[in-house]
């Protein structure tokens, strides 16, 4: 059982981490593509249409990867977490089923038309398909985050005599105070990834001196959406979400911050390594009082430390949680810095001559992916040892009838298959970027 649980968790963590590499880009790109199509309709400038087409190709590859890796997620609740599914299906199933009915049908119906139907549809309808795909993909995020928020902060339920969770208030699933901060934070984080990807392609084209008109458009788009999203991901959304954690999972907050003992005017830790044996942070650099202020808007407010809570409620992997959180927040701060600099250079029309900065943009791409993944690890490790916070333990959720050997076999299968897929997908994206957007159409216009 122990091994089966471990492999089951590893498989879930691996497949979901991999899946989310794709939607975080496609949700953002869907918005940008719809905006480009909108501009084209209004201004009739062909470059907007060609830019939309170029990004649609990258979108399509990522979307395909999102779909094929998403289907195993939907089924995994049943295959590997049967006891969890059986007892919470009443509630978790609602929002997951809604995702299928409301967003996947929408996306898949119009994707083909959007990608290949420009000539048959005409420009107005083509814009409409782009817009509907944007709505579909954000609705998908909306519903999945609603599901996830219920696991973090269960609402609208009752527990029956047989141990099952029964829904008793549907609308509370959506008025869950955890939900909207989490949704907007997540969507902004997805825009951060998208902005950096677009900026990187723009910077690449400037550096190799190709597709210059597009490069300028891409950089401008990316910097505008980048400055908005990098700021919004921190305030108000990140801050609001942190307040939810402080309110509903105070022990998680203490672990995220590496706070072992309660403190008045708690400091925020910039650097430091949790030492679980001695119960303190090693090598720390901190700014006094800031954590208290961020959480309760009072410089001297008391923040509870881990030792104020019974040890069996502590998150199971405190160093992992602490590092994930600090990686996310640290990178978030750096992103804001990069984007402010970019705005400055754009404003002074210096972007093209500051070649070192173009290199920075080019190589910044992996970091928003890392920040997003770290953010999710913060959520998930912070919720452990529970699946439904405070109510249902992870170890009680696993499928009884699936043996450790079977899970290990499928885990290895997924790892192998996904490595192969990743390889294929990098080839295709590389090829698309190398080919670039169409210059011929631009000249003929």
């Amino acid at each position, binding site marked *: 059982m122990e091994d089966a649980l471990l492999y089951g968790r590893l498989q879930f963590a691996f497949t979901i981490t991999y899946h989310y590499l794709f939607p975080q880009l496609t949700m953002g790109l869907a918005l940008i593509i719809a905006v480009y199509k909108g501009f084209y309709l209004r201004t009739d400038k062909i470059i907007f249409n060609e830019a939309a087409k170029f990004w649609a190709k990258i979108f399509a590859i990522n979307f395909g990867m999102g779909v094929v890796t998403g289907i195993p997620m939907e089924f995994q609740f049943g295959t590997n977490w049967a006891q969890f*599914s059986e007892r919470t*299906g009443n509630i978790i199933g609602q929002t997951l089923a809604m995702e299928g*009915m409301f967003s996947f*049908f929408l996306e898949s119906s119009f994707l083909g038309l959007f990608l290949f139907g420009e000539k048959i549809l005409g420009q107005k309808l083509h814009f409409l398909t782009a817009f509907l795909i944007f709505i579909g993909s954000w609705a998908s995020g909306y519903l999945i985050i609603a599901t996830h928020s219920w696991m973090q902060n269960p609402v609208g339920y009752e527990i029956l005599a047989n141990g099952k969770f029964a829904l008793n208030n549907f609308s509370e699933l959506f008025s869950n105070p955890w939900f909207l901060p989490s949704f907007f934070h997540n969507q902004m984080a997805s825009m951060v990834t998208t902005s950096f990807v677009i900026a990187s392609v723009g910077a690449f084209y400037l550096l190799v001196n190709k597709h210059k008109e597009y490069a300028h458009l891409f950089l401008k788009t990316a910097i505008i959406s980048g400055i908005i999203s990098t700021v919004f991901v921190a305030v108000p959304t990140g801050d609001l979400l942190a307040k939810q954690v402080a309110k509903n999972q105070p022990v998680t907050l203490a672990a995220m911050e590496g706070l072992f003992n309660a403190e008045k005017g708690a400091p925020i830790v910039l650097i430091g390594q949790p030492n679980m044996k001695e119960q303190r942070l090693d090598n720390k650099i901190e700014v006094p009082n800031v954590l208290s202020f961020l959480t309760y808007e009072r410089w001297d407010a008391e923040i509870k430390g881990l030792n104020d809570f019974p040890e069996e409620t502590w998150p199971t992997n405190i160093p992992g949680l602490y590092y994930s959180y600090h990686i996310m927040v640290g990178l978030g701060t750096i992103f804001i810095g990069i984007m402010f600099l970019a705005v400055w250079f754009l404003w002074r029309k210096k972007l093209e001559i500051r070649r070192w900065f173009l290199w920075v943009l080019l190589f910044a791409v992996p970091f928003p992916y890392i920040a997003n993944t770290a953010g999710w690890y913060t959520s998930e490790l912070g919720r452990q040892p529970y699946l439904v916070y405070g109510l249902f333990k992870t170890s009680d959720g696993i499928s009884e009838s*699936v043996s450790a050997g079977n899970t290990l076999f499928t885990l290895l299968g997924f790892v192998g298959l996904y490595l192969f897929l990743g390889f294929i997908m990098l080839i295709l994206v590389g090829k698309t970027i190398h080919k670039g957007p169409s210059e011929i159409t631009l000249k003929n216009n």
Partner: protein
Amino acid sequence: MEITWYVILCFMLVMYIVLDGFDFGAGIIHLFFTKNDKEKKQVMRAIGPFWDGNEVWLIAAGGVLFATFPTLYASAFSGFYLPLIMILWLFIFRALGIEFTHLINHELWIKPWQRSFGLSSLLLALFFGIAFGNIIRGVNLGGVENGIAQFNNSYAFFTPLWDGSFSPFAERPGVIDWFTITIGLVAVLSLTIHGAYWIILKTEGDFVKKLQKKILPLWITLLVLVIISIIAFVAMKSFNSELFNQHPAIYLLPVITFLGFLGMLVFRKSNKHWLGFASSTTFIICGIGSAVASMFPIVIPSTNSIIESLTIYNTASEAYALEVGLVWWVIAFALVLVYFTFVHKIYKGKLTNKHDHH
């Protein structure tokens, strides 16, 4: 309420089989019956705009199953663990085989992806048939050995891929035995014919004639398999006529199934191309309908006498969840109908290279 949801769920699954079924059929035809690039293109063109939307019926049905019959979802998905995960892997290969083939124009790239599309379609049709066979045959719920259940949850079961005897009468039959394999082959052949009729509906030229000629031998093989599986079914289980006796109109289902089956042969040369497709669709819908009705209200029969079978009543969600679910489901379904009509209107009739995907 349980019955309403069961009908909805069966409806969604049957929609899935009818729609994605012709994609599987197209894949099988692509694998065995296409000789040149032109024919391969015709097959791809016939399913290109639709397959992704078709697949969503399965994903959505999975979600609805989870929400409305969580115990059934938990039971079937964990019990058929290995075959299900393999189905997931096959889905990946099929999707990439359809979408990625044309992205790089080099033989070394194209050939493997085409094979991947054809083979995974074939295996998927086979696996789905086998899965259906398993559900008809029943499983060892609770993992009973020597009269004692091995699992705490009575819905839990474990089925090995096969057991040495490959017999459905074995004490703990595996996923694959000769009965389930026969049902699997029935599925492969039905869907091949179904796919052929879809392609005939969506293309023109010599390829249509060629496919029309293939239908006779396929149909005869199917006939033989159907007879074997009916005999096996009767030998294995006593026919549950409860629902049939209550509502004699349900006897029409097997009758219509038979008519559809005949239509699949009769209309093969007809100039009204939709007739063949309508027949195979009828055959699939009513065939599954008859099987489901003959089991009602059981959904997973137990092969031991200790744990009772799973029915729609002992696996459903609580009443409130079922009620609110119905409200949003109806709204969502109305929207789905709108999209569906829109897409099929844009791509109505024969598809030519103007509709190509590159």
